[in-house]
């Protein structure tokens, strides 16, 4: 056996914990040999260096369906496993909490999952047995500890810490909110309120708005930059969607800002005007690519956030998604690891669109495909070839009646032929699970483990064999 083959064999299932610098340089330069991990997580995160074994789907319980509770659904996704494309395990957490986003700690041993309604944070051990995550801790004093923050939304791994965005507050259930920091052990650290007009906290209000709203978070460590976006408060995200569209006051309560923060000090530096509820943020990975994208839900605009020539950052609309006047409602999107594409889902028409962002100022539509009713989340493999899709947006925003389908689908994307093919799909209603929301990837290789279950023993064997 050649040395390179030997190393390849030994390293393949091994955990590579890489620093952000490594992540943005060594790992990415070697991208062709690295096979998978989602591309939207913290750069501080440990990376998988093989086929993902599981997708953890944070799922909303539905009253009258199954046990009616929120649950973490573990789906087997390694093609070598016997139960490929099937649900491996389910952990119910009690109650309907408006399950929404989840995220790993930087060591990827724990998955934190939040409930937008009840403000509970559920912490799962995903390393003891990646096939069967176990609920090890529930934080249920989030609101009182944080000084009134409501709606823990996105957990984001920082070294040894978890930084949560949130959506609301306990005083008027509106959109003014904060970031909240915890240790990896689940101890509350601090609350950082999003700047408002009366307390900009030293930030520059660059335009007309400083609404104090929050939603997503991404960082560019090499620029000491942290970026947050803005959505809406409890009254809106919990409201019946059809009712809200007809509520002219409610429709005024959406975020129109993004905030640039000093990552190191957690101090806000600039409030940027980005109208129409800028939701997910995806920052480029390339070492020289100091820019991020967001897409506005209500106005369907692709927005580029990049450095200006004055030492700050600016936001610029660089494109639109579908026909904005039809309110396509772009929701989640994913960026490829080589910064060449973004995949954008539109909830209203169930379509995913791939945009070529080689020129970040001019995104070009490269592919468009109907995936299924009301798709919301998309998670991409590192090589941009496997795209996982789920459906639910928010419990009371999802379609009613026939269009309310709930599934998880795996699509394979072939960049050469520009075709996309379904590999499997799981009907979350048929399985009595609930509304499929956000996905995170798991793998034995992260922890240097072997598969424990007969069902995927062959798969694990296949993984460890030289091909």
């Amino acid at each position, binding site marked *: 056996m050649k040395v390179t083959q030997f190393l390849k064999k030994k390293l393949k299932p091994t955990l590579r914990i890489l620093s952000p610098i490594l992540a943005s340089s060594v790992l990415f330069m070697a991208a062709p040999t690295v096979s998978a991990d989602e591309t939207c997580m913290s750069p501080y995160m440990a990376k998988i260096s093989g086929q993902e074994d599981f997708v953890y789907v944070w799922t909303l319980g539905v009253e009258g369906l199954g046990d009616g509770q929120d649950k973490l659904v573990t789906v087997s996704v390694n093609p070598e496993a016997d139960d490929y494309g099937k649900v491996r395990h389910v952990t119910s957490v009690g*109650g309907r909490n*408006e399950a929404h986003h989840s995220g790993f700690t930087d060591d990827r041993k724990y998955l934190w999952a939040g409930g937008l*309604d*009840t403000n509970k944070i559920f912490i799962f051990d995903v390393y003891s047995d990646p096939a069967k995550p176990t609920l090890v801790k529930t934080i*249920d*004093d989030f*609101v*009182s500890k944080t*000084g*009134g923050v409501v709606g823990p939304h996105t957990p984001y791994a920082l070294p040894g810490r978890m930084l949560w965005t949130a959506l609301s*507050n*306990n*005083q*008027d*259930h*509106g*959109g*003014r909110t*904060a970031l909240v920091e915890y240790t990896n052990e689940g101890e509350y650290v601090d609350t950082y*309120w999003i700047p*408002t*007009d*009366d*307390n*900009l906290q030293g930030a520059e*209000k660059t335009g*007309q*708005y*400083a*609404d*104090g709203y929050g939603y997503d978070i991404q960082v560019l460590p090499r620029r000491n930059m942290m970026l947050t976006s803005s959505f809406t*408060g409890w*009254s*809106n995200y*919990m*409201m*019946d*969607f*059809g*009712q809200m*569209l*007809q*509520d*002219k*006051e*409610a*429709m*005024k*309560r*959406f975020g*129109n800002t993004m905030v640039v923060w000093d990552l190191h000090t957690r101090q806000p530096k600039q409030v940027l005007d980005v*109208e*129409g509820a800028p939701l997910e943020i995806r920052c480029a990975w390339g070492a020289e690519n100091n820019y991020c994208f967001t897409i506005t839900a209500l*106005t369907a605009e692709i927005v580029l956030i990049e450095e200006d020539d004055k030492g700050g950052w600016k936001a610029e609309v660089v494109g639109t998604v579908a026909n904005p*006047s039809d*309110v396509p409602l772009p929701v989640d999107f994913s960026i490829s690891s080589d910064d060449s594409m973004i995949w954008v889902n539109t909830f209203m028409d169930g379509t995913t669109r791939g945009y070529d962002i080689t020129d970040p100022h001019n995104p070009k539509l490269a592919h468009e495909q109907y995936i299924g009713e009301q798709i919301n989340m998309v998670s991409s493999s590192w090589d941009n070839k496997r795209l996982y899709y789920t459906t639910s947006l928010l419990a*009371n925003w999802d*379609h*009613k009646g026939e*269009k309310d389908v709930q599934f998880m689908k795996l699509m394979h994307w072939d960049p050469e032929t520009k075709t996309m093919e379904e590999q499997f799909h799981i009907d979350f209603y048929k399985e009595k699970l609930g509304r499929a929301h956000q996905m995170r990837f798991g793998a034995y290789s992260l922890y240097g483990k072997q598969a424990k279950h007969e069902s995927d023993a062959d798969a694990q064997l296949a993984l460890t064999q030289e091909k």
Partner: protein
Amino acid sequence: MTHLKKITLGIFFSISLSTNVQSFDGAAGPQTILPAPGYGELDFEAPRAGSYKLPVLGYAKNAKVIDTNNETVSYHEMFRGKYTLLNFMYTRCDDLNGCPLTHVVFSRIKELAKQDPTVAQNLQMLSMSFDPTYDTPEHLKKLESGLHDQHMDMDHSSGHDGHDMQHGDHQMHHEPETDTVNWKYLTTHSEEELFPILDDYGQSVIPKSDDAGDDDGNFSHILRVFLIDPDLKIRNIYSVSFLHPDIIINDLKTLMMEYGVDESNAQNQHLQNIRIGAGDSKAGYESKNYITNSLSIQNRQGKETDLLKFVENPPLGLPEVPVPADNPVTEAKIKLGKKLFFDRRLSLNNTISCAICHVPEQGFTNHEILTAVGFEGRSVKRNAPTIYNTAYFKKLFHDGRETSLEHQVWQPMLARNEMANPSFGVVIEKLRNLEDYVGLFEAAFDGQQASFETIPKAIASYERTLNSANSPFDRWYYGKEKDAMPPSAIRGFDLFAGKAQCIACHTVTEKHALFTDNSLHNTGIGWERAMRKDPESQRVQVAPGRYVNVKNDIIKSVGNQQEGDLGHYEVTQDPADRWKYRTPSLRNVALTAPYMHDGSLGTLEEVVTFYNEGGIKNEIQSPLIQPLNLTSAEMEDLVAFLKSLNGDNVAEIISDSFATPIGDHSKN
């Protein structure tokens, strides 16, 4: 000669006469122009504050400038929340009716404000130089320091030499003076930074040339002074003939009245800081010119007050407070009831308190949604009504289905789409086991625990204190204060009681006014909601000033069928009672938008227009509602009257609620 006149003349002489008119820094030049009115007394009496309106003239654009410490500051940061006078000037100016005039007028305002703390606390004056080459921060700092000296000296003497104003080598730090108007000088680093600002404010400035064609250091410019409100809107622009302290101060007071600043409370600073209205203000969101005016959550702080006084001595305009014999109001019950009112643990999943739908600064209703949202986001079919003055209501809820506050309290706690508790017992047991409630019920109710009876009695006791009156109307009508209500509101009351016949349902009696007949009426709003045909599309706002038409099919595909609403019929089952809803009190009505039982009318103007058109006709519409044929001016007067019904204790009640901890699940 009065002290003021001495000062005025002192300044005047120091700047003009004593040295044949000189610039701020002493460059003299002959002038023969007559001094503008701002140097002396007005030839006419300045219009009375509050007797007129100041229209919005535009948006005060933002700019980055530097202060006298060479620090970069932004206009908006300085303007927001303050009433601002902004002038453009240069210190070498020798035009008697130019920059020196503004300087004198600002000085006089500063002096007058010493006797008027409301003005002193709310006004700031900013003098912006358009001569950055000469007016450097260092140079202006000397002048700014001189202002302070001048101010200090003026307390003792009317004489002052203009040169002394810039005797500023001393770097003495002056403590902020709370009793005087803050006056700052501003400049820019360069003309490149300056010109866009001048353009934004329409300030024409042209350098003057000497005989050789070189700039002589002077500028030809138009005197313009801007009055800017706390929401960054320009509300007046003064030129030479109107730049007078009396006019400006009355304009300022007019604006402050519009913003609800009560002069009598000027000393009570913590109430001054209470904003009545949503902390996340969306005023003007319909326009692309919308600018945020948001308050931080962490600064939502207040001071506890004695609420019992509003029961024992109800404010002017309200009758004696009806109190059930079996539930006398006590301080202990009020405090306990208030704690319960703000406790989110009273809902099944610890997310919804009474105050989440009845938000104190939003008029104890919710400005942010038309109809309420309850447990797990479930829809409530009606608007959250205000709880101000509910102590007097004989029928509660929009459909009038309940008869006492004590009875009413349990319904939201048990309603599946509100707080969703499955039983009385669950709530009672929960409260008995919460550590922070230990002993509180026993202390308030002679040893009785939290129970089916004591829980609503406590909450009702708090609600029974929220009595708000002594409004401008009450002071005018019952207190016989002639100037308590502006003329437009007085005309509005005449219409209210006369041509418009609002008073038929919104009752006013000789000694007090509840502005409700405690009855129910069909205006047509409910009928229309139930019977109207669906439109093909609806206009939906997606951003400030941006709208899209959304097909109704799309709206329906993501919305549940709305619950039917037949009003009082749901209580009586009598078809004649279909779509009848309770007459709300009009007290504090300007604070309780959106209006009607379904929140469908967003402003008082819309409400008045609705009634002017006779409501919405239907077979069983109340005969009391008829087209009114009011003119636009009359409708404006009617609205002015409705805006005169705000109680004078609103800020105090809000502040008290801010001081109440919100109950959330805690491990402690």
